[in-house]
C-alpha cells in the first residue's frame, strides 16, 4: 500500500500494464513530449520511447480509428482523449467500428481497446468543455463503461480495462486527479469490471453515486448521521455492465434509494438505475426512488450559475430526508 494521487495511480497502472504486455501502447494528443495535458502520462515517453507513446495531431476520429485498426491486428491500444468532450468527434469509430466489430465479424475481430481521459464537469470550462459524456456510451451494446471514483479504483479498474478484450470507455475526472488515497502497489492488483462497491454501510437509505457525486454523498452522509439517518453508499464503478445485484440487495435492506448524477437528468444514467431498482425491488420500496441530477441546461461559465447547475449538498440531503419521510 502507498498513498498517492488519482493521477499517479493511473500513471502506475499504465506503466505496469506496458511492462506486462508489449502489445500495449498509449496514443493521443500531448501524451508524450508534453507529458499529458493533465500529466497522467508523465514520464511515459522517457520510459517507453516514441514507439509506444505516440503524440497525435488533432484528429480524434482519425487516431481513434487507428487504435481500432491496430486492435484488429492484435495490439492493445490505450487511446487518450485529452478530455472526453472531444470523444464526440470519434463517436462513430467507437460506436460503429469498435463496439460492433466483434459482432459483425461473428467473433473474428474482438477489439481490445481502451479510450480514456477526463470527463464530467470541470471548473468554469463552460458548455463545450464541462459536461458528462458517459451518456453517449453506456447505451451502446459492445462497449464497457467505467467511472473510477478513488485512486485505488483508478488503478485497479484501468488495469482490468487494458486486459479486457473488449472496447472499454474509461472516463476519469479532472477534478479528481489530485485526490490522494491508499493504492496497492502490487502489480497483480486489479479490480474486476462490472462490480459495484459499498463505500459506506448504512441501514436507512441506499445512495447510488460515482465520481464527484460520491464524495459529496459521503459528506452528506456524515451530516445526516447526526440527524440519525444512516446512509449506505453504493458506487457502481462500472456503468456498463451495471452491477444491479449489489445495488438492489442494498435497497432490499434499506427500502429506500436516492440516485445521484452530475450530468443533466433527463434520460441519464440515473433513469436506468432508478428503473432497475423499481423493477427488481418494487415491493421492498417504502418510497419512490429519488433522482438528484444536474439541471437540464448547458454548463454556464459564470461561477455562481455553475454552482447551481450540479446537485448541491442541500439538494442531496433534502432528497434523502424525503425518501426517509423526515
Amino acid at each position, binding site marked *: 500500500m502507498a498513498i498517492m494521487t488519482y493521477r499517479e495511480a493511473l500513471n502506475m497502472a499504465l506503466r505496469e500494464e506496458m511492462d506486462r504486455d508489449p502489445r500495449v501502447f498509449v496514443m493521443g494528443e500531448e501524451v508524450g513530449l508534453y507529458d499529458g495535458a493533465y500529466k497522467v502520462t508523465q514520464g511515459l515517453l522517457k520510459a517507453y520511447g516514441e514507439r509506444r507513446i505516440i503524440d497525435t495531431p488533432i484528429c480524434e476520429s482519425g487516431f481513434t480509428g487507428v487504435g481500432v485498426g*491496430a486492435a484488429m491486428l492484435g495490439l492493445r491500444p490505450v487511446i487518450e482523449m485529452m478530455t472526453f468532450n472531444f470523444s464526440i468527434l470519434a463517436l462513430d*469509430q467507437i460506436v460503429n467500428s469498435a463496439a460492433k466489430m466483434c459482432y459483425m465479424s461473428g467473433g*473474428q475481430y474482438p477489439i481490445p481497446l481502451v479510450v480514456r481521459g477526463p470527463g464530467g464537469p470541470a471548473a468554469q470550462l463552460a458548455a463545450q468543455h464541462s459536461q458528462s459524456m458517459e451518456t453517449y456510451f453506456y447505451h451502446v451494446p459492445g462497449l464497457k463503461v467505467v467511472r473510477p471514483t478513488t485512486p485505488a479504483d483508478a488503478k485497479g479498474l484501468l488495469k482490468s480495462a487494458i486486459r479486457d478484450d473488449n472496447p472499454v470507455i474509461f472516463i476519469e475526472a479532472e477534478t479528481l486527479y489530485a485526490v490522494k488515497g491508499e493504492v496497492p502497489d502490487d502489480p497483480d492488483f486489479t479490480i474486476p469490471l462490472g462490480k459495484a462497491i459499498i463505500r459506506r454501510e448504512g441501514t436507512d437509505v441506499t445512495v447510488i453515486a460515482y465520481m464527484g457525486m460520491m464524495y459529496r454523498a459521503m459528506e452528506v452522509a456524515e451530516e445526516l448521521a447526526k440527524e440519525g439517518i444512516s446512509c449506505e453508499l453504493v458506487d457502481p464503478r462500472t456503468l456498463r455492465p451495471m452491477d444491479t445485484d449489489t445495488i438492489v440487495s442494498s435497497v432490499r435492506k434499506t427500502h429506500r434509494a436516492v440516485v445521484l448524477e452530475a450530468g443533466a437528468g433527463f434520460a441519464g444514467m440515473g433513469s436506468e438505475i432508478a428503473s432497475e431498482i423499481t423493477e427488481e425491488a418494487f415491493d421492498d420500496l417504502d418510497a419512490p426512488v429519488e433522482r438528484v441530477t444536474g439541471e437540464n441546461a448547458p454548463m454556464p461559465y459564470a461561477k455562481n450559475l455553475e454552482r447551481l447547475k450540479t446537485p448541491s449538498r442541500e439538494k442531496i440531503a433534502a432528497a434523502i430526508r424525503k425518501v426517509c419521510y423526515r
Partner: protein
Amino acid sequence: MAQAKTIVLAPRLDAELARRILYQMSLIRRFEEKAAEMYALGKIGGFLHLYIGQEAVAVGATSAIRPDDYAVSSYREHGHCLAKGSDPKKVMAELFGRMGGLSKGKGGSMHLFDKSVNFLGGHGIVGAHLPLAAGAGFAIKYQGGDQVVLCYFGDGAVPEGEFHESMNLAALWKLPVIFLCENNRYAMGTAIHRALAQTEVWRFAETYGMHGEAVDGMDVLAVRDCVMRAVERARRDKAPALIEARTYRFRGHSMRDPAGAVYRTKEEVEREKLRDPITLFAERCAKDGILSEADVKAVEKDVSDVADEAVAFAEASPEPPPEELFQDVYRD
C-alpha cells in the same frame, strides 16, 4: 495521369497468370450475377451493392500483394473479399444470413470479414475504414512486419473528413498503406464534379507529400502494375500511396437503385460497358495468343460451377441458432 509501365515491372504475362486473373474477375462477376438473382428471389435481404464493372481493380490490386498482406474495404466489397481468397461458399452463405457464412450470418453483404485471409472487413459508414487501414499499417510497423495494407474506397469518401485525417496520419507516420480510390464517377446519384471542387483524386496526395497516381481501372494489368510499384515502395520505405483507379459501376448503386439511370444517361452506361474489363482482358489474351478460346470457355464453366456450388451451400446452411443473437456482443 501517370503512365502504367506494365512491361517494366510486372512479370511477363504467362498463361498461368492470365488464367488466374481471368478466373478471378469472372468468378466475381458470376458470383454477383447469382447474388442478384438470389436477391430477387428474396434469399438475400437488406442492401446489396454490386461490384460488376469494377472487377479489374480488386483482381489487379490483389495480384500485386502477398497473402499475408491486408485488405479492407467499404460495403461494396464482395469482389475485394473474393479476390483476397475467401471461400465463395462462405461469402454466399453470409449474404444469405446463414450459420455457414463468414460471420455466421450476422454481418451480411456490407460486413464481410475473413481473418483467415487477412480481410479486415466491409464497412458501412463511408470513409470510416480509412483510419482502420492506417491503424493496421501502424500495427504492422509496431510489430516490425513487412506487410502492407490495401485500402479500397470510393470517390464518395474523398469529401469526408476521415479521408483527410487518414491520409495525413499515414504520410506523417510513414505507414505502409495503399489508399486505392475506386473512382467510378458517382457516389450514389452524385457525380464527382458535384462533390469535389477538384476532381483529380490522385492529386490530393500532393498536399500530404505522398505518392499519388491515377490508373485505368478497366485495365487489370495496368492496375496490377501500378499497385505493384506502390507496394514495393510501401514495403521498402514504409511509404503510403494514393492511387486513383478510374472505373465504372455497370449496375445501379444498390439493388434498390436498379437502373441507376436518373443521374447518368443510358448512352453513358452503354458506352462504358464497351470497356468491360473482363472482355478487354480476354480479348487481349486471345490476341497475344496467351489463352485459347477453349481456355476462356473453361474458365467460364469453372466459375459458373463455383457460383452454383456457393448458392447450393448457402441454401443448405442452417439459420444461426437463437443464442447467436447474444454471442460476440462481448468477448469474454
